[in-house]
């Protein structure tokens, strides 16, 4: 276990968009290591992949937490941990203050209704042999939802309407819908059990721009209507800016910067956040060459062999000796501030 994880006891996990809203979902000191290679995971060729390496997160009721990071940063593992689909090596996930993994199986099953997943690929995440209505209805059948059997179909129709689909198309199969419609179907299904939290894992990245905007607006509208809370995972920084209240930036299994959206996008403190933002090609040709672009060298290191010290030091232009030796801890940039950064030399402009 990384030694500085113990520090999280001192620094409060809480960040806030609307300080009044209570924390609904909270992760503390979340670690997930996978061992690979070698028979029974021992001996030569054995490697420990530090997929998630000490993550603290807090999602406030009714708000959206955006999680950004490049491939291999641990976003997907974190998703599985938050859904209690995978057990962390250490750390806790609490929903409404209750530790999910400490619950008995039956209780965990019931609690899972509260937190549902919207998947990335609407082409492969829906059973091609089921009709749209069956797809939306299935979670209610599986969880023996309170609705009586006959009213489940009525509820499924209602859900289809809610996400902007024609319930009369309920007998159609997934291939008869377009990509955007399929994603709506995925959202309707996720809403079937009246969850409080939706975990959206790259929900619009497979969609074209014109359709992506439809689904983004739908998610925002559903949030306003039902007071839903979202963890919104995406690699597209512009998409996250459009929907998130708070943003957490992940790099190599850790959160390197976290804060409210306008602070993180307006005054990024971690060099990695700056580089990410600067790498996004802006759809405005007049800005070409206007701002100094930061082009990072190299690729992110493998989570099986994370560098000593700061995980970003191998690509960082500000790296100094201390960065190669001591791992920076997520600390507020201003005393008492909500924005936190894990960097020895944060930007402060």
């Amino acid at each position: 276990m990384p030694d500085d994880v113990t520090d999280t006891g001192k620094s409060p996990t809480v960040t806030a968009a609307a300080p009044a809203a209570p924390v609904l979902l909270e992760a503390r000191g979340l670690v997930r290591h996978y061992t690979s290679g070698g028979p029974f995971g021992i001996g030569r060729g054995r490697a420990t992949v530090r997929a998630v390496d000490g993550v603290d997160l807090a999602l406030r009721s009714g708000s959206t937490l955006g999680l950004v990071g490049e491939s291999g940063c641990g976003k997907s593992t974190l998703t599985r941990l938050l859904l209690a689909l995978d057990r962390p090596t250490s750390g806790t996930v609490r929903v409404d203050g209750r530790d999910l993994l400490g619950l008995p199986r039956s209780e965990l099953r019931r609690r899972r209704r509260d937190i549902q997943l919207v998947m990335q690929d609407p082409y492969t995440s829906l059973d091609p042999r089921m009709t749209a209505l069956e797809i939306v209805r299935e979670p209610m059948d599986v969880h023996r939802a309170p609705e009586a059997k006959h009213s489940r179909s009525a509820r499924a129709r209602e859900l289809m309407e809610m996400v902007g689909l024609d319930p009369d198309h309920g007998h159609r199969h997934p291939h008869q819908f377009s990509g955007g419609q399929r994603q709506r179907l995925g959202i309707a299904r996720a809403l079937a059990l009246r969850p409080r939290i939706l975990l959206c894992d790259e929900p619009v990245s497979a969609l074209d721009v014109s359709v992506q905007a439809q689904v983004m607006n739908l998610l925002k509208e559903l949030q306003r209507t039902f007071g839903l809370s979202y963890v919104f995972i995406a690699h597209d920084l512009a998409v996250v800016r459009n929907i998130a209240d708070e943003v957490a930036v992940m790099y190599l299994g850790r959160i390197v910067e976290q804060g409210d959206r306008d602070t993180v996008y307006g005054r990024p403190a971690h060099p990695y956040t700056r580089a990410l933002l600067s790498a996004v090609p802006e759809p405005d040709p007049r800005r070409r060459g206007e701002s100094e672009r930061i082009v990072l060298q190299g690729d992110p290191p493998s989570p099986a062999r994370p560098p000593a010290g700061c995980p970003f030091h191998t690509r960082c232009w500000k790296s100094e000796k201390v960065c190669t030796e001591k791992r920076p801890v997520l600390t507020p940039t201003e005393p008492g501030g909500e924005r936190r950064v894990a960097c020895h030399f944060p930007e402060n402009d």
Partner: protein
Amino acid sequence: MTTTTGGTPAEPQPLLEAEDLTVDLLSGTPGAPRSRRVVRGVSFTLHEGETLALIGESGSGKSLSAMALMGLLPATTAEVGGSVRHRGTDLLALHPDALRARRGKHIAMIFQDALSALNPTLTVGFQIAEVIRAHEQVGRREARARAVELMARVRIPDPARRYRDYPHQFSGGMRQRIMIASALALSPDVLIADEPTTALDVTVQAQIMELLAELRESTGSALLLITHDLGLAATAADRVAIMYAGHIVEQAPVEDLYDRPAHPYTEGLLAALPRLEGPPDDLTPIPGTPPAPGPLPPGCSFRPRCPAARDSCATRQPALLPAPPARLVACHYPLEASSAR
């Protein structure tokens, strides 16, 4: 090869000229053949040293246009019509051998997915050297030396050692560099890049685009960039063509297109795009979905989704017409004329 640079002077002969390009995808059985038109008459020109971005959403026909240009669509599954002239020679009329000789040597292509475009059983160095040896009378040793040099040029660290590595031993960004190296092996004057960075992370995308820009600068080759990404096109292109349902609906110098879109579809795309600047309000989506491939109803193919559609849009298909000074637009009621903005 020439190294003439600079924009588009008066009326020089274009380097690459596609005229009324059509692609019909063939399916069905020999007894009951079916064909669906997916590229419906695409014309554009590419001048020396220029970057033209062909933007479209999935199914718009942008990638198939590129494949057709390169003569890469198998005759059994696709029928290509129209003409593609490279320095005046119609590529589509060439004998396959002659086309093959020209491809690679004068026109090279970079694909989206480097992992499946490279042969997994051959070393990357061999694959680059193979391109050289297929087109030029050079010995193994010289081809190898040139391949190592190319790998160095696309900034692969320690190229002489990595020459012997296989594609899976490289990261996604490095593999894309290998593809660029083999595309540049014979100093082509036209480079076609089909979604070259779509599979890559944003920081690696920035590296690859920077590399492409540098190499283009030093070689003077022209680039046809095929992408769905309006941001990428804005940062890389001189001119932009927007495709919808197999047609080019608007084409203009990059700044004109983003500043003052004339086609409602272009305007719709720009309004639907989340941005890093400005208020992060609700986006303005384009209602509906693009039409499926196959026969289109009469009139403008964007009409069912167009906020500015009028009666005549349902009957007459708009042609791609010049809108001075430098724009082409296929719309009966282009936005500038109605001063919508």
